[in-house]
């Protein structure tokens, strides 16, 4: 039977529209999700991907249009519980776990079928097996409280939760930017599971801004632009450049290492850096680490105008390091921070976009100690333009922005501040390709003007924009090397070295 329905759609969306006030998030979208395929959904920030998936998952009502599931039309009253009953699961872009509950308790929330006298045991077993299957070596216990997990671990829990089948099989899973908070290794684990899942007959929708992932994991890719699906083709028909072009960005040549500005001459070997003195007026930032697992722990040094990259697997203390630097520098007021975990560390939900943007630069926006509203608005409008934040007005609430656009606001907050040291905690989570490129250029331009960046990233590609890279393991930087010595193998080997022993 599954062979028979393979070409027929599992889910069909016909002429679906949805708007939020004046914003038309989706207009007239027609899309088919087939059985046993992984459909990729790609598009710029605010294109309407999450909105479409929310409609599919039953958490948003559509304004116009029809949906069918396995040939059966879904009524106007289609909602979460019906979606669940049909075997549709969704991992939302903004994580949807209860931080006060443990992992297994969160499993019950999503799978109420797990109940009865032994429900804890059952939920723990389900969750462990699901996690083991998708993320071998995850290190998460079902009893852990979610608030204690790092954002990457939370994402793993949520993904694994979506694949736990209790009573009925999972038919369709929607993954909305599942890899944004995962490091390369874990992301790879997920993607290979995705292939196994669809080969087993399941259907899957994958949203991601990382092109390579899309190209390698999806069977077909649908491209969205401003609320429309502009084209759907086999993944093999696309190349990186043609995808970018289809999304509506001018296709710029793929980034290579050679066009990164290289002021490597000013970068010294970190082990030798202690003997170096800087001629610049700003003394370099230097962080000595307590002795760690590795034989030699490098002194982390960031000089004016440098971009320092922090690499390594997620959860190995990069954020903690950034936090430490932030707290030690904050007294001087010359430091800004771009959060990656925007929900818990970045946004102020009750405020408008403009206020969210201005909060770090208030000193410069005030006169006689009073904040000038015009200056705030001017700043917000300017940065909306520069970052391409899609919204009718910067006075709209922060929550009306799509995930990637919220992230851009956080970027604007830090870049707009007068800080000369900017710390970035995996800041590109959810930002689309076109914007990313602009931001990379922007960061380099700012660095050239004398600003210093410390940049933790989970994407290997981004390390090539850094002057100097430190790899973290077990809470410590275990190795540091200049850009010229960067290679994926080197980063991987220092991230893993002793992991094998454990």
């Amino acid at each position, binding site marked *: 039977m599954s062979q028979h329905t393979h070409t027929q759609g599992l889910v069909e969306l016909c002429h679906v529209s949805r708007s939020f006030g004046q914003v038309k998030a989706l207009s007239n979208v027609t899309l088919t999700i087939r059985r046993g395929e992984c459909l990729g959904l790609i598009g710029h920030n605010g294109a309407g991907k999450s909105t479409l998936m929310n409609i599919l998952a039953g958490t948003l009502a559509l304004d116009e249009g029809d949906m069918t599931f396995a040939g059966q039309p879904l009524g106007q009253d289609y909602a979460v519980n019906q979606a669940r009953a049909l075997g549709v699961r969704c991992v939302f872009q903004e994580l949807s776990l209860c*931080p006060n509950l443990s992992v297994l308790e969160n499993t019950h929330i999503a799978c*109420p079928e797990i109940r009865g006298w032994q429900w804890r045991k059952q939920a723990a077993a389900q969750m462990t097996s699901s996690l083991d299957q998708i993320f071998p070596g995850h290190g998460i216990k079902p009893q852990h409280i979610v608030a204690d997990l790092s954002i990457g671990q939370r994402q793993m829990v949520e993904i694994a939760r979506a694949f736990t089948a209790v009573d009925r099989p999972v038919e369709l899973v929607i993954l909305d930017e599942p890899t944004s908070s995962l490091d390369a290794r874990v992301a790879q684990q997920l993607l290979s599971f995705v292939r196994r899942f669809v080969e087993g007959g399941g259907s899957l929708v994958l949203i991601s801004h990382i092109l390579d992932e899309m190209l390698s994991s999806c069977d077909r890719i649908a491209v969205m632009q401003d609320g429309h699906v502009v084209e759907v083709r086999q993944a093999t028909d696309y190349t990186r450049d043609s995808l970018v072009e289809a999304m509506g960005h001018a296709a710029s040549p793929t980034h290579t290492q050679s066009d990164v500005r290289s002021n490597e001459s000013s970068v010294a070997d970190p082990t030798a850096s202690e003997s170096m003195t800087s001629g610049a007026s700003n003394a370099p930032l230097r962080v000595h680490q307590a002795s760690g697992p590795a034989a030699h722990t490098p002194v982390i040094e960031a000089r004016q105008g440098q971009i320092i990259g922090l690499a390594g697997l997620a959860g190995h203390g990069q954020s903690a390091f950034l936090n430490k630097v932030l707290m030690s520098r904050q007294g001087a007021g010359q430091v800004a921070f771009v959060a990656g975990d925007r929900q818990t560390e970045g946004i102020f939900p009750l405020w408008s976009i403009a206020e969210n943007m201005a909060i770090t630069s208030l000193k410069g926006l005030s006169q006689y100690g009073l904040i000038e509203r015009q200056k705030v608005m001017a700043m917000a409008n300017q940065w909306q333009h520069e970052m391409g934040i899609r919204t009718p007005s910067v006075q709209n609430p922060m929550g009306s922005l799509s995930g990637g656009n919220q992230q851009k606001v956080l970027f604007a907050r830090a870049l707009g501040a007068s800080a000369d040291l900017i710390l970035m905690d995996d800041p590109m989570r959810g930002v689309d390709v076109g914007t990313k490129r602009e931001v990379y250029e922007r960061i380099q331009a700012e660095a050239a003007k004398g600003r210093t960046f410390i940049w933790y990233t989970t994407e290997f590609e981004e390390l090539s924009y850094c002057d100097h890279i430190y790899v973290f393991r077990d809470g410590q930087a275990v190795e540091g090397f200049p850009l010229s010595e960067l290679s994926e193998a080197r980063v991987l080997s220092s991230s893993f070295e002793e992991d094998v022993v454990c």
Partner: protein
Amino acid sequence: MVGSPEWRAHIPRLLRTLLPAFSLTLLLLAIFVMQPRAMSYFGLNLMLNLAVPIALATIAQMMVIAINDLDLSLGAFISFVACVAATWLNTHPVAGALALLACVGIYALLGALIHLRQLPAIVVTLGMSFVWSGAAILLLPSPGGSAPDWLRTLVSIKTPWVPLAIVASVVLALLVHLLMVRSTLGVRLRGAGGNAQAVAKSGVSLFKARVTLYAFAGVFGVLAGLCLVGLTTSADAGIAMRYTLLSIAGVILGGGEFVGGRIAPIGAVLGALTLVLAGSLLSFIHIAPDWQIGAQGAILIIVLALRTLANRIGARS
């Protein structure tokens, strides 16, 4: 398992959950040192029996706090229940029982109203506190009434070995722990407080969750009022007004938080007992009357400061 790094990572959390027990022990020790007579069946019962209604009130408040609301009417509600119990329940048991049931119903309705119209619970319950007080004054314009005999006997049962007050507190703590922490219902209710949007996206009805929690609050409020009137044998319209504040303080002292569905039933009961014992300790130290009220504050501060200290030392080791 014990001693593994896995386990060690959870020591701070474990310590935090043990803190309410720590402060209670600290207070009990101080009292025993000052008044050895307190260390007896009779002594413990005397010190703790009035803590039981407060513990019940604290649990009621905790139900509301679990969904990120605050009940400012609890004290007035319990006073009203006490008045009903001392009048109608005594003279017309059936009518009285129905009235108490209706009270629980009103609580559930409040939950529904707050959810459907998205009202700030604190304002609604503030308004309700006037309503309950007014109703209590209409019922008992001046103090009086008399608790039904069965209620009086019930609260003065002599349990073997351990006084009723302690048995009741332990049973209460464990029952509510089972209900709110161990059961699947409790998980959904706490989840609704932890991340309302997320549980709604998983198909849990927030409406049901809030109504259920408010109904629970009503039930425990009624129990608190009955227990109180059984102990005092008669009622007045303002008998439990302070329970509002005490119950909030008890929840927080027990390790609960105002938002995020972080509640700890066992801690809440311990917190209520701690507050009551802090008052008792005062009677065992001889202080000039002028400073007695201040000493009450000082005792609370010292107990909490010691527990912060213990927490820090524990977390460091």
